[in-house]
């Protein structure tokens, strides 16, 4: 999905591609949720159900050479940047054939071949990593941009401040994306961070925009503009996407801290349902949409099968990945 223009003028095929990407993320995570409940996924996983428009809207504005740093809630970032679905499932199910050999799991999905520099278990850590990646692009003059996704909770980490400053001083090609879903674990954003991220960006002379993070075309259009600016040497850019976390902080979180009102209102913000309505308005046929849904379902079924068929990682092999082993000269 390379085209840099979309929005209202987007062709039907492109609209269907947005749809397919969002569905892929949604259905992959719904499946992970089920696998987790059944004990087929170890550890803990953080789902981005309800937030699919953010990752899809933004990664669709990127080129393959662009890099992406992510956070703990990174499934959508990874899949929409192009990580292969089967090796993705294999990884999260802890298998040797996983994209990271089962060493990292959900919180560390990475795929260097598509510029996905990794999910990250340390809140905020992706921010300076992306700044460094952008530095590499600038020094190597390879016309690439680095993007980082972080939540509203990460705003409180000092590295954000340091990174905004450094990126602005050095005019680095980096796009800061704040996925503001209103929650930081079990605490509401209002009790976590008092400033507005766009005011911060302004203080650091970083252009910024705020969009409805559940409207994929709106996200995409904004991202296209900001990514182009970054690519054109205009320095760092920031995009705030307002969205909603549907599930618990992690799977298994009973979410007692959220009101019934909030929970029951979530469906009103469904980025996928909203996009389906838009597709209908744009006269995309039900059959076309169903075809996409069928394809996704089939892909996920196959990926889960692959995941189940994968083998338990070998300890001795894993041990050899700590350092680079060079051929004897």
């Amino acid at each position: 999905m390379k085209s840099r223009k979309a929005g209202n003028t987007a062709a039907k095929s492109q609209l269907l591609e947005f749809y397919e990407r969002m569905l892929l993320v949604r259905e992959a995570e719904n499946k992970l949720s089920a696998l987790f409940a059944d004990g087929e996924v170890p550890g803990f996983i953080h789902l981005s159900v309800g937030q699919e428009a953010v990752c899809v809207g933004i990664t669709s504005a990127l080129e393959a050479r662009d890099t992406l740093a992510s956070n703990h809630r990174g499934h959508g970032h990874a899949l929409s940047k192009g990580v292969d679905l089967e090796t993705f499932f294999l990884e999260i199910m802890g298998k040797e054939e996983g994209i990271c050999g089962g060493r990292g799991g959900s919180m560390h999905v990475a795929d260097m071949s598509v510029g996905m520099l990794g999910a990250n278990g340390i809140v905020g850590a992706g921010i300076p990593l992306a700044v460094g990646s952008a530095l590499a692009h600038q020094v190597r003059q390879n016309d690439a941009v680095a993007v980082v996704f972080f939540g509203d909770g990460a705003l409180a980490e000092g590295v954000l401040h340091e990174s905004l400053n450094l990126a602005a001083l050095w005019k680095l090609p980096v796009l800061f994306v704040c996925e503001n879903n209103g929650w930081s674990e079990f605490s509401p954003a209002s009790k976590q961070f008092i400033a507005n991220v766009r005011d911060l960006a302004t203080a650091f002379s970083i252009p910024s925009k705020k969009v409805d993070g559940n409207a994929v075309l709106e996200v995409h259009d904004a991202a296209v503009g900001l990514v182009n600016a970054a690519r054109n040497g205009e320095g760092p850019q920031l995009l705030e996407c307002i969205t909603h976390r549907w599930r618990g902080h992690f799977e298994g979180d009973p979410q007692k801290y959220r009101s019934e009102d909030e929970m029951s209102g979530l469906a009103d913000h469904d980025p996928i349902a909203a996009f389906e309505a838009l597709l209908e308005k744009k006269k995309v046929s039900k059959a076309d949409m169903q075809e996409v849904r069928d394809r996704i379902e089939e892909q996920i079924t196959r990926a889960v099968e692959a995941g189940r068929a994968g083998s338990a990682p070998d300890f001795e092999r894993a041990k050899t990945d700590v350092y680079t082993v060079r051929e004897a000269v």
Partner: protein
Amino acid sequence: MAEVRFAKAINMALDETLTKDPSVVVFGEDVAHAGGPFGVTRGLLDTHGELRVRDTPISEATIVSAAVGAAMSGLKPVVEIMFMDFVAIAMDGLVNQAAKARFMFGGQCSVPMVLRTPHGGGVNAGPQHSQCLEAWFAHIPGLKVVVPSNPSDAYQLLKAAILDPDPVIFIENKAMYSMKGDLDEAAPAIEIGKAHIARAGDDVTIVSYGAAVNTALAAAATLAERDIEAEVVDLRSIQPWDEETVLQSLSRTHRLVILHEAVTNFGVGAEIAARMADIGFDELDAPIIRVGAPFMPVPFAKSLESRYLPDADDVIAAVEKVLA
């Protein structure tokens, strides 16, 4: 004497000290309203109020350094870092400020703070949520480091840590939170720096701390079936650590195995082995063997993590080696 879980024992110590001493405050990420990521601080907000039990933003460096400043200004803060891996962001407050204040200000002040943090694997939490980094702290003059191995010790050691005028790192093995054990609230206080003989034996000394003590005890039980009587020393505190007790045990058994969950290389066990290879040299009848995690990050997949974590079989093999 009641049976309580490890998490609850910590909660009781917090509740009790908050009640007794108005200068105790508790803060950290999600410790107040949510009662802590592992439920350890549940109920404290309701009982002790918003002034003294607080949720913080995700700002580890400032959580720790603010605790230092508060401790220098009349409070006894007990702060939480949600996973020990995250202390990597907060080392300045601990190492350059808390640990040094008393010394570099010529003894004018102490820094009576406690940092609670969970270490350890076993829950497939992966390389950034499972580390055991206690050796870092034990290397820093000015810090104390305690690691309880059961609910009763957790309760006692945390109370001692909060009472202690100096900064104490209190380490909780996260796989132990639901472990049950007897708790005698009236038991005499535990002194920080004193080890405990968790099991007596004459054939070999196994030194350990934290959750690994239970692994050592399990190994000792199996060894006993083969008529090998292992003495298990639970250090309880690794800075300061009780070299006298270890030396005395070694002087009886003449054989030493050291066990911890942390990476073996440059871990806490290295200091114990090194010290005994000095002051205990004449007592040693066999090489000192350390059992710990291999030199690699903590892996995610079950098949990897279960091989990664040292277990009773590893201890038994080490004991067999020193007895060979």
